[in-house]
């Protein structure tokens, strides 16, 4: 149990021109049941590919049982690590039995075919995953759950010491999902097989895994028992939304879910928000506010600005100025009227120049009228006016009671109050 099964040592890896895994280090011991979790695009699949030597790390090393995976021969590598991909397809009409036989191909060498011992392994893994009765059916005509079990049998026939599953069970129905998980739990317990399960289902991961590794942006954001990792303060930041973690009073199981509150309430209960944006910085704000039932207005924006187009697409009331021109008096007056009806004014992280500096006056007016004003932090870096007028104006506003925001999640939390 003490042996290190898989070791990542300061690994940087990714695709052409894009580093996904950023200086990643961790160790998995033999016999552990691990669930690898994290949002889409955080590098889970890249990690799997790097572990199986499909991707070459740019820096650092990946070791399987103390041996560098890059220096292993393919056959020996396959006996150390087996991977079940998300989906496996064969265009040709192989039977399930023939598919499982592929698991022994590499081990059987070029010149000799499968031996009796190979068939013993094939049979055993097919019994383990309960697919022996499917052996003469066409693989591609099986149901998703059956296919997944056949592929699992094929990978088990490699006799690997670590098995990694890449979201392979997430598209199965609940019955088949638990069936595959039971198989995995069993081989983990009986044969000390190390299991690494990539999953999106946090509650399920907490249920089956001894240890969770939470990834975010190619780094490890949390590593430990389910109780240690599935905490709102860790998860909220990684998934960039509010999550609720509950313990089932009967079983003690951890249950993670998103929050719907405020979503179905009548919009009248919610505030109207006026957003000062530009250059594409408003899109996510409009979307989030609209999603949580706020009434959103925005302006002044230039026509053809990506924010203006997004506002139009999302049905957000907007005051527009001609393309590429400074904000004139008439649009400003309209925007001021609009902002006057809103309870909250939010300034996005838009760049400010002489053309749209006047938009900050909306914030001044709102503050003077006793309204809540939120300004995105770090305005000085986006200030292109002479003498940093925007930054100065923002400083003054903050001194008078405007608040700053840096990430959307906290802003949403505060506004929902």
């Amino acid at each position, binding site marked *: 149990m003490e042996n290190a099964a898989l070791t990542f040592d300061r690994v940087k890896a990714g695709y052409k021109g894009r580093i996904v895994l950023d200086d990643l280090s961790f160790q998995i011991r033999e016999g552990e049941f691990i669930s690898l979790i994290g949002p889409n695009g955080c590098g889970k699949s890249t990690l799997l590919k790097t572990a199986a030597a499909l991707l070459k790390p740019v820096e650092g090393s990946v070791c399987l049982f103390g041996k560098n995976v890059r220096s292993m021969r393919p056959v020996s590598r396959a006996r150390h690590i087996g991977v079940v991909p998300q989906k496996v397809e064969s265009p040709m009409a192989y039977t399930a039995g*023939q598919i499982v036989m592929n698991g022994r191909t*590499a081990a059987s060498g070029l010149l000799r075919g499968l031996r009796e011992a190979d068939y013993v392994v094939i049979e055993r893994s097919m019994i383990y995953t309960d697919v022996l009765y499917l052996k003469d059916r066409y693989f591609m005509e099986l149901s998703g759950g059956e296919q997944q079990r056949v592929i699992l049998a094929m990978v088990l026939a*490699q006799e690997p010491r670590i098995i990694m599953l890449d979201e392979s069970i997430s598209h199965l129905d609940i019955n088949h999902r638990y069936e595959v998980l039971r198989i995995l739990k069993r081989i983990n317990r009986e044969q000390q097989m190390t299991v690494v399960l990539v999953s999106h289902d946090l509650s399920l991961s907490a249920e089956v895994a001894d240890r969770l590794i939470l990834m975010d942006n190619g780094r490890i954001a949390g590593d430990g028992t389910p109780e240690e990792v599935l905490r709102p303060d860790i998860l909220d930041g990684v998934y960039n939304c509010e999550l609720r973690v509950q313990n089932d009073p009967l079983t003690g199981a951890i249950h993670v879910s998103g929050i719907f509150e405020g979503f179905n309430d009548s919009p009248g209960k919610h505030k109207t928000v006026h957003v000062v944006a530009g250059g594409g910085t408003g899109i996510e704000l409009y979307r989030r506010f609209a999603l949580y039932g706020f009434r959103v207005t925005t302006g002044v924006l230039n026509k053809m600005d990506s924010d203006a187009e997004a506002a139009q697409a999302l049905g957000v009331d907007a005051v527009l100025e001609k393309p590429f021109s400074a904000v004139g008096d008439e649009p400003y007056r309209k925007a001021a009227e609009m902002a006057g009806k809103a309870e909250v004014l939010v300034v996005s992280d838009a760049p400010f120049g002489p053309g749209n500096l006047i938009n900050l006056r909306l914030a001044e007016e709102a503050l003077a009228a006793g309204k809540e004003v939120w300004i995105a932090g770090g305005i000085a870096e986006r200030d292109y006016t002479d003498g940093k007028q925007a930054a100065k104006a923002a400083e003054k506003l903050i001194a008078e009671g405007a608040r700053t925001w840096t990430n959307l999640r906290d802003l949403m939390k505060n506004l929902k109050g």
Partner: protein
Amino acid sequence: MIKKGLHTGAQPAALLGIRTVPAGRVTVFFVAVPMLLTLCLFLGPTGIGFPDPETSIGKAVMTLRFNRLVMGLLVGSALSVSGVVFQAILRNPLAEPYVLGVSGGAGLGATMAILFGAVSAIPLSLPVAAFTSAVATLFLVYWIASRGSRGAPSVYSLILSGVIVSAVCSSLIMFLVSTASVEGLHNVIWWMLGNLQPAPLQQRLVSALFIGSGFAGVWLLASRLNALTLGREMAHYQGINADAVIMGGLLFATLTAATAVSIGGMIGFVGLIVPHVTRAMFGPDHRWLIPLSAIGGGTFLAVCDACARTVIAPVEVPVGVVTALAGGPFFLLILQRKMKHAWIG
């Protein structure tokens, strides 16, 4: 790791009984093939008959028929096996021996050799030119396809660059043909239609050696080709050096097809359809598919050639016409009923 407890006394293979190939059909196949081949020897312009081997004319006729039979077997099996390999590696039912530019390259080489007078000077220069330019075209296609991708090229870029290079070659051939003399034109067209006039013995032996080693190469890769149809990534996870298998397979298959083209010209249809029919009849396991389609393809071409030289004797129909006209409907019938045993999805 699954523990290696081999204490079960039962025969595991028998116990498991994974059906890889239908035994009954294989038996029928192996009975039918010698009968068909014998029939080819008997088929002559005057109907079915056996020329008296005692007379010198009879002897000559038999030798000629036998040699053409051998040519048909060689070329047919080479094209079929190379079709099987291309379809497996490219995971595409439209793949055939000529897909990566073998035909275009060979055709261009042969056309130049004929039109620039090399052939009339040294007859052997035709197959040599066809062969070398076919292989050179494969390398060109492979090189184009692998630019911009690390390691081995993707299947799609291989197919696309193969099609494009072939098209360029065809245009060059058309240009050469349009400027050629009438006599050269006739020679080029005749070569491109394909025919199984026996090549000189030495050339046949060399070709048989090439084709034979190509067969041996792809047969060694057979179980890896099975794994490769699940995709390059999955094959890699299973401990198979997918890039090496793809490279080796393409090389062996092209070598085989180029050799066939160099002795038989461009006979179409065989390399596309025989693999499909063999797969539909015997399943997609390449350990069986490769030898069976070699035998099946060879027999098919030999039979077609026997028909080609007899149906409207003494005029000889190009064998490529027979393969398509006679074989087409027959194979379509089989595919209609059995396609689901070959390709799914």
